[in-house]
């Protein structure tokens, strides 16, 4: 019942444009992540959704309701902030109770001193206390209710912030980099808890992060944003393996994807760093392309040949199960990074010559504008085969 | 984005309220300047206008600087403020460095002494200081105006706080480079603390330029008077009725600080508010 539809949202701050014409539709109950580097407009989009910022053009609908011009209170959304934004002068219980007090008590009942004695206040307050207790119980912070935020650890504060968002059962949860103030270990732990929370509550989550690991592990779908534009909306796996845009391929994945400039030389064949790769034949001769190959798409090859890159090993990083090998390849500006299985490539040393073949199903083609060049039948990159087999 | 999300007031309401309060704040200044350029006849006229029908400013200002040695008072003020400030920095920076960066027995006790000094309102000490100046035979000299202020507990406190925020490694590096502790104070710490020095300077100069209490006690001789007491003497001599020259004199006394303030607002606000801990 509470999907979200954003239509043609635009927003500028003075001379800088934060969002160019963003449209997005979010399914009810979905966990959607806005992923992008800082300054890409993801937080602005979230704040527009919350009603904290007003868009210059376009409209926002939550559920069946257009919420443009509605205050955050009326939008039935809850938000968790990067800084948690807990009220330092209130106890944990008061922090969690605040959204309920603001909604259920009228202005007179909230007034200091007199409010307590107005009819209905007492009962409403008791009900609120009950719910706060229940929420705290569910998050495992019931023993902290009388503390102030200043006395809590980072993880505990995070839970209080979650509790404050959960307590009134909003239709939509908005989270703005909620884990970035935690240390690495706690971050992984809280990530699992947020995922579990989403499963339990079953409501729509919109989550903003610059951390691709969070986006990949948490999301049903990921929205990759850059410079105020949506580049791609897809399932995490698809974002990784089947990016629509060169910038998506570059942003997602670590180590970074290898990029090669190439030109169609012969029909169905491009030259990459002195070796030939086969590509769909319908591309016209002379087309300029960018060929992108993920580091793990390489595998050790015995000797040079078609479809095999040859280079000098500049550096080797041992990552336990894998090796990252940096190769200087003639005609390629940046070192080529290959991720090889440590078992299969035990004795690579700096300075040696190495041959790596390309696993055909992982080659991605982009045109010079950065748009993806899809292959025949819309099938994935499967038809790219090393030249030696094709010849 | 507005700087506070408390409320978005209609701009016109905000501006009209603030312009009204600004106008009220400025009334005494405007009145002072207005009277300073009016002839006596117009001052005692029952209707009000800011600008006089007949400009009498030249006469009033001339009288202000000739009938009393106003320029001499201003000179006294400049001299006394400069002397106080120079000596304060000279005395306070070394002890602040010792308190901030050196380890020695008695440091806490010394700092406690500074804090006690910070706690004491200076006026309370005026009686003993008056007697001290009398014993030293410096009453009614420039020395009496300067002497009680040459160590400023606030200055020590402020410099110490600032010096503490400079990394110890800077001190260690300076020692390795062969600087003595004294030259570390003057060649490293003080130049690195210019914001604090500037804030303190403003606090000190504004305070002593405007001070009436101690000069009233310390000097009787007209030729030694700093501006506030000078202008008080002028007022008493004029029996308070010749407002034109008196207002001209007031304007001349107030102007230097206000011009400096308007030119370097940010620094002045900072200097005067760091003084809040005093």
């Amino acid at each position, binding site marked *: 019942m509470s999907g979200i539809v954003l239509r043609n949202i635009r927003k500028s701050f003075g001379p800088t444009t934060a969002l160019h014409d963003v449209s997005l539709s979010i399914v009810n109950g979905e966990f959607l992540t806005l992923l992008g580097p800082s300054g890409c407009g993801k937080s602005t989009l979230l704040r527009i959704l919350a009603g*904290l910022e007003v868009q210059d053009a376009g409209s926002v609908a939550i559920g069946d309701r257009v919420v443009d011009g509605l205050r955050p209170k009326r939008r039935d959304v*809850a938000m968790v*902030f990067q800084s948690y*934004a807990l009220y330092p002068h209130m106890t944990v219980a008061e922090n969690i109770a605040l959204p309920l007090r*603001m909604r259920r008590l009228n202005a007179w009942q909230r007034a200091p001193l007199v409010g307590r004695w107005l009819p209905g206040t007492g009962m409403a307050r008791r009900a609120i206390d009950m719910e706060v207790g229940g929420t705290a119980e569910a998050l495992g912070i019931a023993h902290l209710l009388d503390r102030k935020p*200043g006395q809590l650890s980072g993880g505990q504060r995070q839970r209080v912030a979650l509790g404050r968002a959960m307590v009134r059962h909003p239709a939509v949860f908005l989270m703005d980099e909620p884990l970035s103030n935690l240390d690495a270990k706690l971050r992984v732990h809280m990530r699992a808890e947020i995922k579990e929370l989403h499963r339990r509550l079953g409501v729509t989550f919109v989550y903003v992060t610059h951390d691709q690991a969070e986006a990949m592990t948490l999301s049903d779908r990921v929205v990759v944003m850059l410079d105020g534009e949506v580049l791609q909306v897809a399932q995490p796996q698809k974002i990784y393996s089947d990016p629509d845009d060169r910038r998506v391929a570059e942003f997602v994945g670590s180590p970074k994807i290898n990029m090669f400039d190439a030109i169609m030389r012969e029909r169905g064949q491009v030259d990459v760093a002195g070796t030939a790769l086969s590509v769909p034949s319908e591309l016209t001769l002379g087309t300029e392309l960018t060929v992108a190959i993920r580091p793990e798409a390489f595998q050790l090859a015995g000797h040079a040949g078609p479809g095999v890159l040859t280079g000098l090993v500049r550096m080797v990083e041992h990552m336990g199960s894998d090796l990252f090998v940096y190769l200087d390849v003639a005609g390629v500006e940046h070192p080529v990074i290959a991720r090889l299985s440590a078992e299969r490539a035990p004795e690579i040393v700096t300075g040696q010559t190495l041959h790596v073949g390309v696993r055909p199903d992982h080659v991605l083609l982009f045109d010079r504008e950065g748009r993806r060049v899809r292959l025949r039948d819309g099938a994935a990159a499967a038809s790219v085969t090393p030249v030696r087999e094709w010849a | 984005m507005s*700087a506070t*999300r*408390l*409320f978005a*007031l209609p701009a016109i309401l905000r*501006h009209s309220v*603030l312009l009204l*309060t*600004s106008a009220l*704040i400025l009334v*005494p*200044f405007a*009145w002072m300047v207005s009277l300073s350029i009016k002839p006596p006849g117009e001052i005692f006229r029952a209707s*009000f206008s800011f600008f006089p029908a007949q400009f009498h400013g030249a006469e009033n200002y001339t009288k202000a600087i000739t009938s009393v040695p106003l320029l001499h008072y201003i000179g006294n003020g400049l001299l006394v403020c400069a002397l106080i400030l120079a000596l304060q920095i000279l005395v*306070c920076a*070394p*002890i602040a*460095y010792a*308190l901030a960066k*050196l*380890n*020695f027995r008695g440091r806490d006790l*010394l700092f406690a*002494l500074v804090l006690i*000094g910070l*706690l*004491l*309102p200076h*006026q*309370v000490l*005026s*009686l*003993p200081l*008056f007697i001290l100046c009398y014993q030293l035979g410096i009453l009614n000299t420039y020395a009496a105006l300067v002497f*009680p202020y040459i160590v400023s*507990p606030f200055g020590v406190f402020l410099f110490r706080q600032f010096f503490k925020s400079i990394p110890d490694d800077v001190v260690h590096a300076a020692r390795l480079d062969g600087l003595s502790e*004294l030259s570390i104070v003057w060649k490293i710490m003080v130049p690195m603390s210019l914001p604090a020095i500037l804030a303190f300077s403003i606090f000190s100069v504004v305070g002593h*330029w*405007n001070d*009436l*209490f101690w000069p009233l*006690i310390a000097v009787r001789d007209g030729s030694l008077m700093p*501006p*506030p007491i000078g*202008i*008080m003497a002028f007022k008493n001599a004029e029996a*308070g009725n010749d407002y034109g020259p*008196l207002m001209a004199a007031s304007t001349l*006394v107030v102007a230097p*600080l206000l011009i400096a*303030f308007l030119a370097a607002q940010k620094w002045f606000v900072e200097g*005067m*508010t760091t003084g809040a*801990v005093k």
Partner: protein
Amino acid sequence: MNARLSLVSRSVGPVTTSRKSMLVSELRSPAQKHARGEALWAWALAGPALILLIVLFLLPVVGVFVMALTDWEFGASSLSFVGLANFREVIFDEVFRASLINTVVYVLIVVPGTVLAGLVIALLIESSDSCRAFYRAIHFLPFMATLTAMAISWEALLHPTVGLVNQTFAALGIPTANWLRDETTALPVLAVIGIWQNLGYAMVLFLAGLKSIPLDLYDAAEVDGADLWIDRLRTVTIPMLGPVLMFIVIVVALKAFETFDTIQILTQGGPGHATEMLLYTLYRESFEYLRMGYGAAVAVVFLVMVVTLTLIQARIMDKRVHYQ
């Protein structure tokens, strides 16, 4: 000093005093030498300030108490302890009691007036970006201006016949008065001048306090449902400003306690004793009437009040640090 010597003698063992001093430099460890060098430097650097702190602060404050507890007169060569006689004299003196009451009344007008005006103006200035520096500068001007000179301008403003105040009031049909010569109005008028002078100071401190409130808190309050600005004021602004507010109250109270210039220029404590305040009483009794014992007793009373306020302020500053 003693501790260091004992350290040395421990490492040296039983040595006769005369030999000990001879051996000190040879037998001290490098670390001890270093510490000694550092301590010497420290005292050398602190020395001038230390002496001046003792001469200009510590001895005078002891002196005030001595004077308050003895019958010493200026120029007298002997003194004898009179206990609390000076305080008794002060307390039973009508002038002093008037002075004390006036000071309290004055502070009770100036502090709320200044703090409230400063807060409202700070909130108004901070609610938008336009002309911010301009408004801040204007409201801060009185705090910078030489009060002696401005008091003379105020006197002209308040002049019973040609002053702008009475002219304006008469034109608007508001009753006029001889503000500074009327026992009922003199003190409130001085308080108004006090507010005029200090509100810019309070405003600037409030502005700094407002700036330090994280914007996220306002956003959170809004999402939590604080739609009305009064709710945001109550859930975020005022509580977050709380420590700053208390601090400003004390600082302004201290400034109000120390009021002297306007009394000296405008009223000399009159009419009657309507504007007699502590610092002015202290000045006049000590330096015009040369009643040193009496003056010292007033000084002690003044000191106790100011120190109490300052210590409360220090407590609040401490608390503020522990807030987050």
